[in-house]
């Protein structure tokens, strides 16, 4: 029985690790940009594309359907890049909301034209992590590694625009072009992972490990390491819980992320002083090495340590994301 369970869950577990790898990293960007729902908007517009393809007779599993989804996601990326303004009079989250609502409604209109279109739509967004096979893990791992490499090569503009867009404009970066490249590559990742794991799981992998990293460390390197470790640990725990307690796997992973984040938050609240001191020490070390001025440092180019966060008036009331946002120059 245990061996059979292991055989069934081994590939889904590896897929969770692959998801952790790329999403924990991308999560830092979307949190810094304050566009946490961008994945859901891009997934929904990709679903609209696949629904359109379905109307033309292309089933969900075909490459034409995938290509249509990808094409629509790229269109969404273009919209997101073009609607960014330097002055930021309106939050980008408003545009994301519109993209989401319109593509969800558009898909309903299209699904209205095909029998069981709504079921297809649902399948596209719910995903099923247990149905993952080895060949799929390999394919997705190669694709995400390529996207990761692309992001590593473009790390300077991507991080600068995420953390300090004003500086990026001042330094003469073509922000809209880089934004388009960022959202398009992000769209490729989200389109693929939502089909595999569903919207809820992808959202959790994107946001929660990155939040854990931001709470516990101040520089991008340690933050990433913590995000990856956190994502991996939660994946292992949730897989075991799902097998042992006979629970649906995807929902178990999402709830495990929520519980672990809550536990981390409570732990930090109880012991702010001890941890704050160590974070402050690490910040000092970083400053000696010029780390605080590195563009690879999230939080407005000035690293936000936990000590800063704890010391900030009203920070607890506003929550960590707002506190980081408030630190923007």
């Amino acid at each position, binding site marked *: *029985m245990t061996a*059979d*369970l292991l*055989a*069934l*869950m081994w590939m889904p577990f590896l897929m969770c690790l692959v998801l952790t790898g790329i999403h924990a990293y991308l999560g830092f960007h979307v949190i810094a940009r304050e566009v946490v729902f961008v994945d859901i908007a891009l997934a929904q517009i990709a679903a609209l594309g696949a629904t359109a393809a379905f109307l033309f007779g292309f089933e*969900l*599993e075909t490459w034409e359907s995938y290509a249509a989804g990808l094409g629509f996601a790229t269109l969404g990326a273009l919209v997101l890049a073009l609607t960014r303004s330097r002055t930021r009079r309106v939050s980008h989250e408003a545009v994301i909301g519109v993209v989401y609502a319109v593509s969800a409604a558009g898909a309903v209109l299209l699904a209205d034209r095909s*029998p*069981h279109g709504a*079921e*297809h739509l649902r*399948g596209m967004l*719910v995903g*099923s992590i*247990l*149905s*993952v*096979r080895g060949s799929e893990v390999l394919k997705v791992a190669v694709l995400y590694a390529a996207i990761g490499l692309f992001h590593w090569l473009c790390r300077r503009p991507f991080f600068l625009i995420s953390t300090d867009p004003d500086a990026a404009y001042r330094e003469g970066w073509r922000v809209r072009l880089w934004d388009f490249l960022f959202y398009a590559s992000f769209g490729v990742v989200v389109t693929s992972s939502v089909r595999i794991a569903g919207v809820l799981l992808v959202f959790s992998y994107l946001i929660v490990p990155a939040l854990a990293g931001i709470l516990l460390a101040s520089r991008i390197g340690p933050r990433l390491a913590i995000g990856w470790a956190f994502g991996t640990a939660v994946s292992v725990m949730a897989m075991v819980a*799902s*097998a042992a307690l*006979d*629970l*649906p*796997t*995807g*929902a178990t992973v999402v709830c495990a992320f929520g519980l672990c984040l809550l536990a981390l938050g409570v732990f930090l609240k109880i012991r702010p002083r001890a941890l704050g001191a160590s974070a402050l020490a690490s910040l000092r070390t970083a400053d000696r090495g010029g780390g605080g001025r590195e563009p690879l440092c999230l939080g407005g180019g000035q690293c936000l340590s936990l000590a800063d966060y704890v010391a900030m008036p009203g920070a607890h009331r506003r929550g960590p994301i707002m506190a980081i946002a408030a630190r923007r120059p």
Partner: protein
Amino acid sequence: MMIRSELLRLGEAMARWSATLAPFKGAKVIVDHNMWPYFLTRFGLVQAGSVEERPGIPATPAHLTKLIASMKEEKIKVILAVPWADHKLAERVAEEAGAKVVVVANGVGAVKGADTYLDTIDYNVRAVAQALK
């Protein structure tokens, strides 16, 4: 008269369907959704399990493991699937258990070529017989 001729055609078709599936009487199949109790009962086939345990709730690993084990043990080779659902999970279970997924029409027009009631049942009978061979 119209109805009478329709009934005659239905009677002929029923004889044909029963003859096609007669060799497989008592054969066990798995379903993805609990959609075929009447069809299976009429032709003496046995539903030995379902991929989806509770409607709308994703299957748990323990349930799938048990299902795969019983499919291997009882040498069940066929999973009947509705055309409108995502078949990925059924495909995975079939792969683990050495079975195959057969799409069956759950109504007129659900698959290509199933434009009337008789065509629909014709299609299903043929698909199931082919898979059980």
